[in-house]
């Protein structure tokens, strides 16, 4: 079992009367790769800046390994930051940028040289030591920023959307590289992003934030497959929400829910249910099966959109009751019935047991999660 490294408790922060963080609690474990995920304005960057010490919370405490850091200035914290646009010192060479932290510690010259060389080798920039930041590409600047931040062997590395300025391909490469670095260095990484795919693919744990509050904390898999609420479900990946009504709450283990007039039995969810209650049945597009119109199973509808995506075929199906369904199916070359045309009538079904149930919520959270990632 991993130990808690950084613990945030009851953190609140307001800017000009606007609440950015709202009594937030969070425990970050030693050695993990944890991602703060949320739309812009959710408080993730503020949270990171509180950890780094650039801002101070209005209330609450930050402790690192039991030591209170809440009001420690940034230069006295054993944490380092990789900034969004790298913040490399433009007047210093790559070497001097990376050496900066060690110079502040007044390390002997020889040690500084050795450690900077090592750090640059680690990010494969050994031969660029004499260059100035503006002579490097975006990806190279990114590596310098990382080398500069890890050279002091911080207990924790804070990364503020570090990949957002890179193009798609480079971002992929850097994602892999960051994971490798984190494994090699064994440092706790706190990674801020608004890109849910990035969050899911890199993290040990994901913190979903909205309005300065933690919406969900869990492994990528938990967050994706078992979202804690409608916001998380909407923000992380595409989701179909089907309206359901509890038909029978069968004692302890299962409930029967009426979806599109079909009676389905589910394991009892971890929220209170009573007969007649409305709830959401969530299905990811890849859980949806599109069937022939004469199939016994499923709900009837008509294909209104189809997009060829290379490895999958994504379609939108308009059910007869007006519900729109997103379906994403992997190609099966051998299945002749796989393809269908626009306007074609089909039936929609899903794999039993892949549904996820969420209770009805007050509708104020409407579509706020629909931020483009």
């Amino acid at each position, binding site marked *: 079992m991993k130990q808690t490294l950084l613990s945030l408790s009851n953190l609140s922060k307001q800017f000009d009367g606007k609440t950015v963080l709202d009594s937030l609690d969070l425990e970050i474990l030693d050695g993990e790769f944890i991602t703060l995920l949320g739309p812009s304005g959710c408080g993730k960057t503020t949270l990171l800046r509180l950890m780094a010490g*650039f801002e101070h919370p209005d209330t609450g405490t930050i402790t690192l390994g039991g030591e209170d850091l809440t009001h420690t*200035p*940034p*230069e006295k914290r054993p944490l380092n*930051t990789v900034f969004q646009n790298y*913040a490399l*010192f*433009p007047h210093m060479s790559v070497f001097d940028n990376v050496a*900066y*932290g060690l110079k502040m510690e007044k390390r002997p010259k020889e040690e500084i040289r050795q450690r900077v060389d090592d750090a640059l080798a680690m990010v494969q920039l050994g031969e660029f030591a004499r260059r100035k930041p503006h002579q490097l590409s975006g990806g190279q600047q990114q590596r310098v920023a990382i080398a500069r931040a890890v050279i002091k062997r911080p207990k924790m590395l804070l990364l503020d959307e570090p990949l957002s300025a890179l193009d798609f391909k480079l971002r992929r490469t850097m994602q892999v590289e960051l994971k490798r670095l984190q494994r090699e260095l064994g440092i706790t990484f706190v990674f801020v992003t608004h890109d849910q795919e990035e969050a899911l693919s890199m993290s040990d744990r994901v913190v979903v934030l909205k309005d300065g509050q933690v919406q969900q904390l869990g492994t990528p898999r938990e967050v994706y497959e078992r979202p804690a609420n409608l916001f998380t479900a909407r923000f992380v990946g595409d989701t179909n929400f089907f309206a359901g009504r509890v038909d029978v709450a069968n004692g302890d283990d299962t409930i029967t829910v009426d979806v599109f007039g079909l009676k389905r039995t589910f394991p009892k969810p971890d929220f209170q249910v009573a007969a007649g209650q409305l709830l959401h049945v969530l299905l990811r597009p890849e859980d949806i099966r599109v069937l022939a119109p004469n199939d016994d199973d499923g709900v009837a509808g008509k294909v209104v959109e189809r997009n060829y995506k290379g490895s999958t075929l994504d379609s939108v199906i308009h059910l007869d009751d007006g519900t729109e369904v997103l379906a994403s199916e992997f190609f099966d070359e051998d299945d002749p019935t796989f393809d269908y045309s626009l306007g074609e009538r089909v039936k929609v079904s899903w794999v039993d047991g892949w549904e996820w149930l969420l209770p009805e919520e007050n509708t104020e959270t409407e579509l706020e999660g629909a931020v483009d990632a």
Partner: protein
Amino acid sequence: MSRWLPRTYLTLVYLLLYVPILVLVVFSFNDSRSGYAWGGLSLRWYEALFNNRAMVQAMWNSLWLALSAATVSTVIGALTALALHRYRFRGKQVLNGMLFVVMMSPEIVLAISLLGLFLLVGLQLGYVSLLLAHVTFCLPFVVITVMARLSGFDERLPEAARDLGASDFTMTRTVLIPVIMPALLAGWLLGFTLSLDDVVVSTFVGGPSYEILPLRIYSMVRVGLKPEVNALGTLLLVFSLVMLMLSQWILLRSKR
């Protein structure tokens, strides 16, 4: 449009701009006493210049004034720019506006208004009054130069420095000042030149106790021709050329 027409035109205008200066330089080496006919090569006017004690004194006075005015205006201007860039405070627009007014208002208006002030408070006209006046008209130029640099300044840089263990003071010394240094130098050089060149304001707020070069030249050239002025002008030209190249070099070197 064909290419030679614009080129010829540009060349022609540059010629017009430079002919008088060339004439001045050439005639500074003229041995003849009449300032118009060529009488052979000589350095006699340079000699005469340096034998003129009052002239040399005025030169030193001017240099010292320009040096101090440029330095004071750079310090105040840089602080002003930092304050404007960084702080939110009441009357920021008014402050900006006042700087703009100083920059745009005709020099002569600034000159008489300062003269009025100095007489009102009983300040004797001399070095101090000249310094106050020169700093005032240099100030907006320094502020603008430094502001331009700061507007491209990444707010994360000071944070990065603190994050890596630099104290507030160390951050200022190792990051903030080096990054805005080119602007400070450019602002300083601009102030230095403006001060050295100023005639209008100095005519009003200067006093006999502290004679400076432009005023001395002014009294010389008002009547007739003085060949020493050719020599002096040439020296000033070389001097400003060196200063200007220095500032351009600094700016180019700092271009990111």
